[in-house]
């Protein structure tokens, strides 16, 4: 890989990844996109999903992220995620808790926008559970 850019994944509790990489797949709320070096500057919201870093080996290659945004610049990518867990470490209980949280929110809220977002989130979480075969 000739060209690289600085990639950082930050959760509220700590800095998870800080590395120079050539390619990252980001699950954006308006659609997934791949960040390569010299990407146009964008600030994008994230949907719950999986962040992929093809060059990284081991558990950091695929990371589940939820709630946050990606700050893309020509020579950097900063992902702020409220939750960030390597896919391999994703536990059934954790996912179940995430799903329950959204369901609670859905039961509680009256705001249309929030509702739509929650339904969307819920669907994605459920399908993630399906693909990972973690259903209880």
């Amino acid at each position, binding site marked *: 890989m000739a060209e690289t850019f600085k990639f*950082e994944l*930050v*959760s*509220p*509790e*700590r*800095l998870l990844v800080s590395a120079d990489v050539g390619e990252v797949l980001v699950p*954006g*709320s*308006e659609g997934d996109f791949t960040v390569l070096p010299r990407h*146009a*500057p*964008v*600030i*994008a*919201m994230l949907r719950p999903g999986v962040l992929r870093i093809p060059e990284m080996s081991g558990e950091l290659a695929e990371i589940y992220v939820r*709630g*946050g*945004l990606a*700050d893309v*610049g*020509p020579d950097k990518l*900063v992902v*702020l995620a*409220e939750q960030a867990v390597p896919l391999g470490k994703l536990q059934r209980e954790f996912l179940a808790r995430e799903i329950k949280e959204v369901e609670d929110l859905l039961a509680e809220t009256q705001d249309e*926008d929030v509702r739509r977002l929650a339904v969307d989130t819920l669907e994605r979480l459920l399908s993630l559970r399906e693909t990972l075969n973690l259903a209880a």
Partner: protein
Amino acid sequence: MPSLKDLRNRIASVKATRKITKAMQMVAAAKLRRAQEAAVAARPYAERMNAVLANLNAHLGSTEGASPLLVGTGRDKVHLLIVMTAERGLAGGFNTNVARMARQQIRALQAQGKDVKLLLVGRKGADALRRDYGGLFQETVDLRAVRQIGYAEAQGVARRLLRMFDNGEFDVATLLFSEFKNILTQKPTAVQLIPARLPDAAPVDNSEPHADYEFEPEEEDILRDLLPRNIATQIYRAMLENVAGFYAAQMAAMDSATRNAGDMIEALTLRYNRSRQAQITKELIEIISGAEAL
């Protein structure tokens, strides 16, 4: 005049106390290190968040139609104070300082004719304020069962706060906590959470090309999503600083307690030896004068 036995007992009890304070000091020191690490680890997120907010702020044309979290409810009547203290005492003036600041703020706001409501995080602050201002309590958050403060706790508090705001229970929210300056200083600090104060855009750095950002979705939508998160982040930061400050204060308090106990043991031992000497001298005089009388 205490007897020799009394003195011995007192020395023993002060020594036992010193052992306890010494142990507490060391525990506090170990936990302080962990708390500081957590605070440092949380910093990048807050910094990046601030950078993005500043960026959004710079791009946001008008505040018209913006979230009430940003522009407020248009009123300034009901103030909510979130008072953050520790769950435990024995930390010098740590809890008292925050409680005193809370009292001052409550008095000042009430003097201006505002309504004040309180949300207490931490048992000690609730205990300190209950007698005078118990009627203003809305909720108390007890974190005693929590071993290591995580983002989830901050989110819980933020969620309550937002629910209250949505129900129109207050207009302005201010967070009172102890800022961790360094190991020796913790400063009670007030931060206004709602309406949010956005950081100003960073001064444009001419050395690198300043890019115009695109937003996906619109700025307003991102901001709507980001503001509640920012509140949680600020609460989280305050919680971490609070915990670090608490252990620092406790360490200092226990350090001086240990030293005081040491001084006391010295003074008591001196007194004990003197009265033992006096006792021996007295007995000798009695024996000698008894012998001379024969």
